[in-house]
Each structure stands twice: as structure tokens, then as C-alpha cells.
């Protein structure tokens, strides 16, 4: 520890601490623009100059490490003179257009200028003008305001993983820009708005819609992935105007993904359902709550009475709250029915009943960056959990070796040590190879259960898998780690694969052999919570897939658009078509709910209170930040009244908090989670490693801005480059094998459903795979996200005929 003095106040700090960090620790405010605790030190703005005893000139507090006995003066005459002179320089070319600047009221430059600026300017020469750049639909630029602090450049390079902005030119002519006419495409791009200390980069959708002082700031939890990022929702006149990160070091640090930042535009979508509706002779009619609920309850009752309680199926969004999940489960069970499930994008349910507890990520989010070896299985991490990808990036920057096994060779914007790109089915074999290679490397083969040992005997380990295994046990190019910290994670593509059970079991075994942490990276905000609550079929019930395969007479839908949110779009669609009654609790009117019978308008997360459980098992409650729109009601309330209307007992909750109390039943929520989160398996399932599909296998990712009903209605996100027209993408070798060239029309068929799409070669797709993204109206005819698929080249005329037939069928 070093003893130093700042403005006469003594403080002890660690070796290597900079003056600015020491001052921050002491609560001494030093003005700054370029310095940011999460970015590399640039020391270019010079605003943080301070006087240090025995130094002839002022030193930048951000870049100067303290030394024993250092006496620092941040407010001395010399320090203030230096700071004032820097302020003067910063302002000479600044337009001083605060009245028309969106940053006004929350501008670092404005704030610091009040403290350090002069009332008038000595600069009488011409001011610099810098042309604005169009860097995409999310960020507005007013580059004349830029003070060249380069925070944005450093963020995209260091945190985003890809240098998309740069400072071109030099001297006074230096300006921040993207490469000629390119947009900034980082899925974390919005953070540069927060980082910009002036009004050069502002929020494009929010532009000119409110002044910062008119906004009320309310805390909430981000609902589009399972990280549980902390957000601050900014509200004006009961409308969500924008969303910003709320600092939480152990989860989202001070960042937010673009999905979580800009999805709010979907909350204000014209699609919002504002009043209950009942379909009457094929026509939607608005109605009041009482009528709607009585109608819904009557229908459910009639059908269950006539066909048995088993005739009902409840499909629940994993983005719904724990309270909502609990109530719908209780409601369905109350009717004597076991058909309830949240796992809408899963095909493989063979692990049901085989686990000890609730599967989770197996470690904390902030442990990732400390890992030495990482294995990601079936995950397009930037698409699935954009901010989590940044944690992995930090690990790699810290020297971790990243291995990837996936059907897609997507660039994670970090160095990959080893990668194996194979079909989803072949992932199983690769994992078995790794297990075999590792057990040999660890000399642990005898410790494996005999079932596995036998299985591994038939496995042939290939050199690239061997290399991956060596990395995972800690062998390195220069240094071998004796006890490496290893993390093994299964992503969305693994979770929806038909061989998920094998992948999970082998990953568990590999984890056991290597002492790795890890588990699954659940897709949605409350996937873990739903599992923990058991929003899953009772022993006699049907899981989500079965409910569609064997259509039910009645469905109760919570917060979903069936054909967009379910694994098998075609199946979901036909099941809804065939049902006698579909009661949908939804925030949106949707084409996907055309076959519903009753639409009950529920409040999205901003208009209700509730609780999510994140991938790391964190239980986080939030309150409504605005009043429900129109006649919308919180879903917990709707479910409660529906249960009451159905005559069920035990639903007398007055608030979501009461539901929460009931869920945890007096236990401390964290203890509740602790005792139930567990990735271990009770018993080994049968593993078949040589699954060969006769044909091709689909890789049907859900694009990040299509993940759920809110985000898919955010216009700004739809305008980004991630919202691409649906294509069939094939490895160039497959293109040749099927005699295809780019732009050819292809008839794609899964099960009995088909669609027609143009084809494009894509070397990032594993041979044997067909990449067709899901959750889009163009692919509604298709089946499983990771299922068998066939393709056939057709002519443009045939394609036109197909499409016109499709149109007819829809009308």
C-alpha cells in the first residue's frame, strides 16, 4: 500500500493505482472526458491535469500512477489554471448549441464547463465544422460537437471486439468516423452514446423527443436474454422514452446490449392490444374484461368438461415472470390438467426427470473473464447473449483459450484457439471424442461409468479434437496450466437440437473429468425461473412439443406468438388452427394469433411488477415503470381472475409480491435458488454417437432481434443489418453438390411444410447443414429449428406459382 495525499487528505492505495482512481476512491472530483474506468487510458483530453508536488508541470491524473508520499493538488491555483485552459481549448471549436442538443442537461462538457469555463470566449477566429456521418439506425451523429476523446473508438475495439470507428486525418482536422459510408454494426453499439461525453453521438430513435430533465428514471430488469441486466427506464407522460443501463458490475457492468436498449420501441408499437377481444363468427370484437374472462373461462370449462381436463394445453413464454409462471401452472393443475410448459424451442425432452435440479449456467457471470479455458457448444454467443459475449472476449484478452463446437462458424470477434464446425448431430460425436481424449490425458478413463467407457471404445479421436481436448486440460503453447479454470457452456443451438440430451450428458461428463464449471446458457429472461417453478408437464402431462404434435382442443397461451416462438412453426400453426378454443394472454395483436378465440391484453414488463431468475440464478424483482396501456392488465392479475372465474381455490393474491411470497414460501429466495440449481444428472441416459441423418440438417437460429414479441416490433432494430431477408444458406461444397448458384430459388421442405427462398453460399455453415433462420413469416411453413430438411432447386416460375398458392391459402 502507498500512502499519498490528495488535497491534504491522506489516503492509502494499492501499487499501480492512478491518481484519478485514488481521487475517486477518496471522493475528490477530478474533471475528465477521455478517461473511462472500463477502457484503456488515452490521456488525450487533458482535462484531468492536476498539480503534483515536485513536478514542474501538471500531470494527467488518469495516466499517472501514484508513488509513495505523493502530494497531489486537484484544486490548487496551478491545477485549476491548467484545467481552465484545457476547458477553453475544448470550447473554442465547440458549437455551443446546447439549446438544440439532445445531450443538454446530461452533458459532461456542459457540466464541466459550468465549473471551469469562462463566461466569454477569447477565440474570435472561424470555428471548425465537421460533417455528420450516417452510422446506422440507432445512433445520431453531430460531429461538430465531438471533442475527439476517442471513447467510442476504444469501446468498439476493446469491448465490442471490432474497430468500427476510427479517428481519421490528423491535428485539428482529425475526425471520428466509420469506414466510408459504413454503419456501426456492433450489437453493443448503443453504449457509445452513453460513453460520449458530449452530444456528438446521441440516441437516434429518441432524438428530439424529450429533454433529459423531463424524464423520470425508474429501475427495471432487461427481459430479452437471461443475463438479468439492470436497466433504467426513462419515462415521460407514462410512456417509455428510452432505456439505459443501470450499473451492475457483476452482471452488465455499465453496458447494455442494443437489443435491451432499443427494444422499448416495441412497447409503443401500434400492434399493442389495448382492449380484450373475442372472435365472434370469425370477426374480432372488442369487449370488456368481465365478458372476455367469463367467455374464456366458459370455453375452457366446457371443453375440459366435455373432453377431459387433458384437452387443455398451456404454452408459456420463458420471458414471463416467475409470478405469472407460477399462477398459470397452478391454474392448469387446478383444472386437473398436467399440460403446461415453457420450453417452446426445445425438441428433445429425454432429460426430463433425469436431473437433480434446475439447470443453469453453473457459475457466475463475472467468473467468465477469469476462466483459462472455455468450450462453447452450439452457441452463436453474440446473437444469443450479446453482453455475455463481451465477458468471454475479456477472458480471451486475458489469455484464455476459446474452443468452439458449432454448426456455424460465426465470428465471435475474439480469438478462437480451436473450432470444429459440424452438423448438430455430429456435435455429439465430437464431444465423445473430446471426452475420450481428455480421459486419456487426465488418466481418468477408469473413473467413467462403464456405460460411457464402453461407448468411448468405439470412438475414433481426430487430431483437431485431440488438440481441443489438450487445450481443455490446460496444455498450452508455452505454458501448461496445472489447474486451469475451465468453463463449458451449451448455447441456444444445442438447447434446441434433437440430440440435446447427448450433448448435455457428454458435456457434463467432460466437465466432470476436467473439473470444469459450466452448464447451459438459457435463452430467455426467466427460463431458469420457469424450470425452478416447474412450469413443466406434470408426470402425466404433455410437454410443449407433444401438446402441438397431438393437438389439444383448447390452448391457453401466455405471452407468445405460437408460430414465431415455438420450435416447430408449422406444427404450432396447425395446432392453433385445429383447436376449438385458444385463449391468448398477449400484449400484441398478431397475425400469429389469428386462430385465437379470446385475446386478453396483458402488460409487458414495463407495465407490471414481477420477478425474473437469470442464468446465474439471480432472482430479481422489478416494478412497473409506467401504467398499463389502455385496458391492459398485469398477467398475474389476469391469471388470478381467470382462475377465480374458473372457480379455482387459492388464487386470492392482492399483489405480485404476495404471489412471490407464496412461491418462496418463507424461504429466502437466494437459498431457494441455491438448493435447487443443479446441473448434475441422477442417472445416465443412453447415448448414441453415430446418428446419421440421411440428408441435410437445418440450422434454424432465432435472429437476436426476433427473439420475442417485444423486440420483434422495435422499428429501429428492424432497420439494422441484422434484420436480413430470409435466405437459404449453404456451404459452397453443398452448393456445388446441389448444382446451385447464388440467387437460385430453392424449395425447402421440413416434415410436410415447405417454403421457397433464394439461396446463398456461406462458408460459415457446416457442410451438411442448411441455414434458414427462424421466427419469420417467410419460414412459417417449416419445422424444427435443428431438424432434418431437404432442398430442391426450382425455377423462378415454379417459385412464383408456389408463392401465389401460399398467398391464396393464407387468404
Amino acid at each position, binding site marked *: 500500500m502507498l500512502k499519498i495525499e490528495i488535497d491534504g487528505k491522506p489516503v492509502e492505495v494499492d501499487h499501480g493505482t492512478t491518481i484519478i482512481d485514488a481521487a475517486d476512491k477518496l471522493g475528490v472530483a477530478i474533471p475528465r472526458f477521455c478517461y473511462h474506468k472500463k477502457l484503456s487510458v488515452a*490521456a488525450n483530453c*487533458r482535462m484531468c491535469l492536476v498539480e503534483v508536488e515536485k513536478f514542474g508541470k501538471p500531470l494527467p491524473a488518469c495516466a499517472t500512477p501514484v508513488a509513495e508520499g505523493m502530494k497531489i493538488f486537484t484544486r490548487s491555483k496551478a491545477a485549476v489554471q491548467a484545467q481552465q485552459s484545457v476547458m477553453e*481549448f475544448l470550447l473554442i471549436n465547440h458549437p455551443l448549441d446546447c439549446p438544440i442538443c439532445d445531450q443538454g442537461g446530461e452533458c459532461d462538457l456542459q457540466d464541466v464547463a459550468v465549473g471551469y469555463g469562462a463566461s466569454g470566449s477569447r477565440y474570435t477566429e472561424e470555428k471548425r465544422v465537421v460533417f455528420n456521418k450516417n452510422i446506422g439506425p440507432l445512433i445520431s451523429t453531430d460531429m461538430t460537437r465531438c471533442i475527439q476523446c476517442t471513447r467510442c473508438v476504444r469501446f468498439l475495439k476493446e469491448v465490442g471486439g471490432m474497430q468500427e470507428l476510427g479517428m481519421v486525418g490528423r*491535428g485539428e482536422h482529425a475526425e471520428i468516423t466509420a469506414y466510408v459510408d459504413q454503419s456501426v454494426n456492433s450489437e453493443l453499439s448503443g453504449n457509445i452514446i452513453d460513453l460520449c461525453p458530449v452530444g456528438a453521438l446521441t440516441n437516434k430513435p429518441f432524438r428530439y423527443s424529450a429533454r433529459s430533465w423531463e424524464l423520470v428514471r425508474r429501475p427495471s430488469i432487461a427481459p430479452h436474454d437471461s443475463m438479468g441486466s439492470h436497466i433504467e427506464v426513462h419515462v415521460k407522460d407514462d410512456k417509455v422514452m428510452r432505456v439505459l443501463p443501470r450499473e451492475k458490475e457483476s452482471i452488465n457492468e455499465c453496458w447494455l446490449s442494443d437489443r435491451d436498449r432499443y427494444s422499448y420501441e416495441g412497447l409503443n408499437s401500434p400492434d399493442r392490444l389495448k382492449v380484450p377481444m373475442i372472435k365472434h363468427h370469425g370477426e374480432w370484437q372488442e369487449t370488456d374484461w368481465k365478458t372476455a374472462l367469463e367467455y374464456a373461462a366458459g370455453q375452457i370449462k366446457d371443453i375440459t368438461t366435455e373432453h377431459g381436463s387433458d384437452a387443455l394445453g398451456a404454452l408459456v413464454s420463458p420471458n414471463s415472470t416467475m409470478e405469472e409462471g407460477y399462477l398459470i401452472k397452478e391454474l392448469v393443475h387446478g383444472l386437473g390438467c398436467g399440460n403446461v410448459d415453457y420450453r417452446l424451442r426445445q425438441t428433445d425432452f429425454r432429460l426430463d426427470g433425469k436431473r437433480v435440479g434446475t439447470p443453469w449456467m453453473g457459475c457466475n457471470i463475472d467468473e467468465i473473464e477469469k476462466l483459462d479455458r472455455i468450450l462453447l457448444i452450439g452457441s452463436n454467443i453474440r446473437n444469443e447473449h450479446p453482453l455475455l459475449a463481451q465477458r468471454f472476449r475479456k477472458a480471451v484478452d486475458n489469455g484464455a483459450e476459446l474452443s468452439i463446437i458449432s454448426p456455424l462458424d460465426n465470428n465471435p470477434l475474439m480469438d478462437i484457439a480451436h473450432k470444429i464446425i459440424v452438423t448438430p448431430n455430429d456435435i455429439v460425436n465430437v464431444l465423445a471424442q473430446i471426452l475420450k481424449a481428455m480421459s486419456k490425458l487426465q488418466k481418468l478413463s477408469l473413473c467413467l461409468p462403464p456405460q460411457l467407457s464402453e461407448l468411448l471404445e468405439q470412438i475414433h479421436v481426430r487430431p483437431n479434437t485431440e488438440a481441443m481436448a489438450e487445450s481443455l486440460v490446460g496444455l498450452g503453447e508455452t505454458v501448461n496450466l496445472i489447474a486451469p479454470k475451465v468453463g463449458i457452456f451449451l448455447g441456444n443451438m444445442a438447447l434446441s437440437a434433437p440430440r440435446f440430451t447427448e450433448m448435455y450428458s457428454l458435456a457434463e461428463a467432460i466437465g466432470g473429468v476436467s473439473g470444469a464449471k459450466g452448464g447451459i446458457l438459457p435463452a430467455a429472461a426467466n427460463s431458469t425461473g420457469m424450470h425452478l417453478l416447474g412450469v413443466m408437464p406434470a408426470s402425466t402431462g404433455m410437454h410443449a412439443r407433444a401438446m402441438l404434435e397431438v393437438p389439444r382442443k383448447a390452448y391457453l397461451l401466455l405471452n407468445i406468438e405460437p408460430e414465431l416462438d415455438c420450435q416447430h412453426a408449422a406444427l404450432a400453426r396447425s395446432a392453433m388452427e385445429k383447436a376449438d378454443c385458444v385463449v391468448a394472454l398477449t400484449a400484441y395483436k398478431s397475425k400469429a394469433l389469428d386462430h385465437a378465440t379470446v385475446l386478453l391484453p396483458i402488460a409487458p414488463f414495463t407495465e407490471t411488477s414481477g420477478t425474473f431468475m437469470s442464468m446465474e440464478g439471480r432472482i430479481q424483482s422489478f416494478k412497473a415503470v409506467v401504467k398499463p396501456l389502455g385496458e391492459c392488465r398485469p398477467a398475474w392479475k389476469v391469471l388470478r381472475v381467470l382462475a377465480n372465474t374458473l372457480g379455482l381455490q387459492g388464487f386470492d393474491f392482492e399483489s405480485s409480491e404476495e404471489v412471490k411470497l407464496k412461491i418462496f414460501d418463507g424461504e429466502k429466495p437466494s437459498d431457494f435458488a441455491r438448493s435447487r440449481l443443479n446441473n448434475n444428472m441422477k442417472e445416465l441416459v443412453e447415448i448414441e454417437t453415430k446418428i446419421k441423418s440421411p440428408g441435410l440438417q437445418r440450422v434454424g437460429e432465432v435472429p437476436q432481434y426476433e427473439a420475442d414479441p417485444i423486440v420483434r416490433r422495435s422499428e429501429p432494430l428492424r432497420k439494422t443489418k441484422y434484420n436480413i431477408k430470409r435466405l437459404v444458406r449453404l456451404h459452397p461444397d453443398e452448393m456445388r453438390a446441389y448444382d446451385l448458384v447464388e440467387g437460385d430459388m430453392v424449395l425447402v421442405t421440413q416434415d410436410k411444410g415447405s417454403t421457397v427462398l433464394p439461396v446463398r453460399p456461406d462458408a460459415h455453415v457446416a457442410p451438411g447443414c442448411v441455414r434458414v433462420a427462424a421466427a419469420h413469416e417467410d419460414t412459417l411453413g417449416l419445422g424444427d429449428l435443428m431438424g432434418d430438411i431437404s432442398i430442391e432447386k426450382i425455377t423462378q416460375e415454379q417459385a412464383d406459382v408456389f408463392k401465389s398458392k401460399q398467398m391464396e391459402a393464407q387468404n
Partner: protein
Amino acid sequence: MSTLKSETKDSKPVMTDLKGQTLITLQTLKEDNPASLATYEKLGGYEQLKRLVTNKVKAVEVINQVKLSGLRGRGGAGFPTGLKWSFMPRYYDGTKYLVCNTDEGEPGTFKDRDIIRYNPHQLIEGMAIAAYTLGAGVGYNYIHGEIWREYEIFEAALAEARAAGYIGQNLFGTHFNFELYAVHGYGAYICGEETALIESIEGKKGQPRFKPPFPASYGVFGKPTNVNNTESFASIPWILQHGGQAFADLGVAGSGGSKLFSVSGHVEKPGNYEVNMGMPFTELLAMAGGIWKGRQLKAVIPGGPSTAVMPASAILDATMDYNGLSKAGSSLGAGSLIVMDETTCMVKTLKRLSYFFYEESCGQCTPCREGTGWVYRVIKRITEGNGKMEDLDLLTDVSNNISGRTICALGDAAATPVLSFIKHFRPEFEYYIQHGKSMVDGQ
């Protein structure tokens, strides 16, 4: 052979008299074909390298000789070379780098160009000796992009040295390896600053790094790196051949050796003069043929524009060494004398210099990026007849606010001419402001 011929295509030869010079870095000029390997070898070239390497002379012994020589960094900062060498970590797991700074862009400085033109092998040997001493495995000579011919000459000399076994792997049959490469700038004054130069070697913009960490711990590709000026490296073989003391004895206290002085501007014979440190200015001026056209001396910038201008009265009694010029109110810098005769308008001259710093500021630090443009515009306005008396105080104030407030010394360099020109020639500035025209040329 008594004249120094410029070999530049289509240029008249510079008739620089070698009499009175102490040729060390340009010692091959006494010979025909000065740049060839044979010439250098004839003068004992590469023998010191061979001696050190084959006799496994200890690094500390070499460093002691360099310390003894009193050699100070010839790039302008004047930091003792031997001391700088001692900062390099002795033991390091990985490649250490050696960098030669031939990014000669300080106006009025053109000495390193002649070293490459006329004696490239002495530079190569100097670098190889430094590499041996410091344990550097790889070296780069970063050459000013504008002197393209010299870049090609150096590449050719490297090929010769490589073929002759003076650089490369297992030199002289030992385990000593040293790979040396030529790299180039492409038009950025700032890359003469050592950390900007390092950034540039890495293929980035030449924006200086904040120090600490210094290059000795975090240099090229983040590895320990020692950077010296061309002339400094080229002095090393002579120092080891004749001993540090012999070098020190050539000069005066605090300024060992001889040094190349680049003399430009209003003299009869502009060119490089390698003379002993401590030579009276008047003697050096006489060697350069005196003031041209029989005119009177008005002022001299003694070490490039980042050193303060000296009126004739101040420099005429000065000696050409670190202490001598410091006592006289300026500094030696890179030894680049820009001589101005009585017809020179100091306002217009300052305008050109301030334009230079405005143009060459890298744009990283606020005071330099914003301040150099401000200064230039005010001076330009004065030369356009729109000056105000208070502009002079403003210029002084703004310059003081740039100086000492930036990552690198360019901020200080940009302030120096403004402060010293106004200090020594204030009446000329006032005249220009009052009359809207120059006191000297009436325009």
C-alpha cells in the same frame, strides 16, 4: 578528396570544406565511394562489432565506454546515451527491440540523411553493437519517408551487411543474432517522437504514447525497446575503437565528442559540418561561408524550431554545445542552425513555423490540437493586417497553455517559437499590427 558531394539526382554538389571538421559519423567522406562496404571496412569498419562479439565482451563494459564518452542523444533531447542503454531490462523472456530514429523532420535538420547517404555501414555497425550490448534480437531503422532515395540506399546497405555476415543469425559463429530492417514513415513530423515512431512501426497512426511506461519496458509490439538517433548509433563504433575518453576529449564539459551541425538558411554554403562540440558559433558560421549576399546576421534558430530563436547579439558569443547554448538562452537541439539575415520578417517567419506545428499536430491532446490552430490563425490574421495589440498577449498566453500540457513534446515545441519570437522581436510584431505591413520588407 576534400569536398562533400551531394549525390542527389540533378543537384549541384555542396562544396563543403572538410577542413576544420572532425569526421566521425561521416568519416568515409575522406574516401571515394564513401557509402560502400569496402570503403567502410578499409577504415576498420565492423571490427569493433567482431571484437565485442567474438571476445564476448561484457555489456556493462560497452555501456561504461558509452557513458564515458559523454555522448548525448543526437536527436535533439540530449539524453545521455549510456544511461538510456542502462534502462533496458537485462533479462527478458522474449524478443527485445532496437530502433533507430531516422525520421528527420525537424525543419533545418538534415544530418542523418547524409549519414545514410555516405556512411550507412557505420550506422549498421553502431546498431549491431547496441543490439549485442542490450540483447536486442531485432532492429528497425525508421527512415523519414520524404528521403526515399536514402531509404533505398539503406536497404541496399543492409543487403550487403547481411551477405557479409554482419547482421543475421549466429554472427561470427556465435549465438548472437541480430536482424535489422529498414522501415519508413510517410509524411508525419510527429513520428520523430519515439513513441509515435513505435506506433508507426506497428502500422498505426503516429500518435505518441503516454509515458510511463517508457519504451525500455513497453516499446515495439509491447516489448522492451531502445530507441536512439541515427547520429548517436553512428558514433558508437568510433567510441569503441578509440575509447570513450577520446570521444569525450573532443568536446567540452557536458558535451562529449564532435557533432554534425546542419546549417541552412541565409548562409553561402548550407550543409552539414561535423565539428567538435564547443566550437564558437562564429567559427561554424565562417565554415558555412558566412551570411549570404554580404548581409548582416539577424537571428539564428540553433537547434530546429523547437528551440528558441536567438537574436544575433545572443548567438554571436555562444559556443556550440549543450551548456553554451543553454547559457545563451536557447538549446542545442539536433544542431540544426537556421540562419536568418537582416531582411527576414520575423512575423511571416513565425507564421510559417506556427503553420507547421498546426499542420503536424497529431490531434490527440486537446491543447495542441486546438491551440496550434488558434495560434496560427491569430498570426495569420496579423499578417493580413487585422492584428490587435492584445493578440500578442493572447498568443503568449495560449502558447503557455499548450506548453507542458500534452502527452509529447510537440506542444512545447509549438509554443517555443511563438514565445521566443515575440520575446526577442516584439517591436516587429507591434509594427505589423499598427501598420498592417512588415517592418522589414514593407509588404
